[in-house]
């Protein structure tokens, strides 16, 4: 587990990249750090291998503070996949991949076997690719090699800094799928920085949403969609995306206030606007009353009966197919 404890990063000019960040990154999971540019996500990630150092606070890996650790040794024990190329253009694929094992003084045969095994794992035939140079490969192939290179030293932790952002959409999708599958085999602690919400929702076990140097929310993709902590997170995920990923029954009553009647003279059962549509429907059925009086924090939002709910459902369906 990686723990950030009250971490602050202040630059000499006074700007604060991180403000008192406390967050845990679970071990053996893929954690995505996401946020708009300048939110501090990359800074946070780079602190794990000491490419950036905190002005205040501490970072712990498996309860050990990294402050005292030798940075070169620490970095060799952590995989690092950089944005864009990052491969060394003057070295063959084999040399690129075996760099960290060589820094760690692994015996040559072990290094060789490991390189071949990993290349095979990402679908690159070692016999074809070992002696090639990075520029002879496509963008997607290069970034596969980048991932392989990060895994070569058998690290427990792998840092990925927007690794797929420079790829075309098709290669990006492919690599995301591959990373997902790869992670199911290797179970590393992966920290994945991205600004692409679709990517984060697709590959992450845990997502950390950041803004202005602070953590806005930590949760699983499902938690983020079901219960965005605040307006920012909701907007960042995107209402559309949230709605797409949730079934009608899971959505809240208050989202459909537009369809409710303002007046109702007959009987009505009081219902909280935060109730999910299916819970509300159940309540309506049980109460035997024709309408629900939907109340949001004390104020009446409107009256909803079966008719209103049906209208809302039809609207949602139309939205989804649009």
């Amino acid at each position: 587990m990686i723990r950030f404890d009250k971490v602050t990063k202040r630059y000499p000019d006074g700007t604060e990249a991180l403000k008192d960040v406390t967050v845990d990154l679970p071990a053996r999971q893929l954690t995505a750090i996401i946020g708009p540019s300048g939110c501090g996500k990359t800074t946070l990630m780079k602190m794990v291998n000491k490419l950036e150092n905190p002005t205040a606070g501490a970072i712990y890996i498996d309860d050990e503070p990294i402050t005292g650790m030798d940075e070169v040794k620490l970095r060799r024990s952590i995989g690092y996949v950089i944005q864009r190329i990052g491969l060394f253009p003057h070295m063959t694929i084999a040399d690129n991949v075996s760099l960290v094992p060589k820094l760690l003084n692994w015996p040559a045969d072990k290094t060789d076997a490991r390189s071949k095994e990993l290349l095979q794992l990402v679908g690159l035939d070692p016999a074809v690719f070992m002696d090639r140079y990075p520029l002879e490969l496509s963008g997607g192939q290069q970034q596969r090699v980048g991932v392989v290179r990060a895994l070569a030293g058998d690290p427990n932790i792998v840092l990925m800094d927007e690794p797929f952002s420079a790829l075309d959409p098709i290669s990006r999708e492919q690599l995301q799928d591959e990373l997902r599958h790869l992670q199911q085999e290797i179970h590393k602690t992966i920290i994945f920085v991205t600004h692409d919400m679709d990517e984060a929702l697709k590959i992450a076990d845990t997502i950390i949403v950041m803004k202005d140097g602070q953590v806005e929310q930590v949760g699983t993709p499902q938690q983020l969609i079901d219960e965005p902590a605040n307006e920012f997170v909701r907007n960042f995920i995107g209402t559309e995306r949230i709605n797409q990923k949730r079934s009608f029954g899971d959505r809240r009553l208050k989202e459909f206030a537009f369809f409710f009647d303002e007046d109702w003279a007959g009987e009505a059962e009081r219902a909280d606007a935060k109730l999910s549509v299916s819970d509300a429907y159940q309540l309506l059925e049980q109460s035997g009353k024709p309408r629900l009086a939907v109340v949001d924090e004390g104020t009446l939002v409107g009256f909803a009966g079966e008719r209103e709910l049906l209208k809302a459902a039809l609207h949602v369906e139309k939205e989804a197919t649009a």
Partner: protein
Amino acid sequence: MNAFFDTLVSRQDMIQDAFIEHIYLSFVAVAIGIAIALPTGVMIARYRRFAEPIIGITAIFQTIPSLALFGFLVPVLGIGSPTALIALIIYALLPILRNTYAGIVGVDGSTIEAGRGMGMTRTQILRQIELPLALPFIMAGIRTATVLTVGIATLATFVGAGGLGDIIYRGLQSYNNSLVLAGALPVALLAIGFDLILKWIEKRATPKGLKT
């Protein structure tokens, strides 16, 4: 034309000695120039705030007309080949220094950060990443310096350091055009020869992965 060949034959020994002297002067000057400029270039690429002033100083030297520089040095160092060598070294510095600096600074920052992030030490990054990637630039600088030095070394004769300048100067004084040519032609051939050889080395020095 015949007069020229006669001169070549009759002054063969003298020309040969001057030729060897010339090569010696140029070669030693460039070698020492590399020994100074290459590490300095690496240093100023690491400590960038020194880059401007240091390149500036060598650039100022470069603007001094070569004949004047030889003239300045004589009262200080006297005549003889050390004086000539020092002047030649000063001229060789700038191209090597500037190209080494530009070559290293030009290495993509993300490539270097990848190296740092993987746990390479500064020295490992310099040796395994920066220098190999900057090598084509450095070689181009050495090539420029060499051709320049071969040309300027003809002025070494004025500080009594010999070289092919001796032959040219003697020819000029005695209004012997054949002798001037017998000195000038080997200088030109030498410059072209060095250029070709270094160009070949430059090509070979370009990392294989960058040629595609």
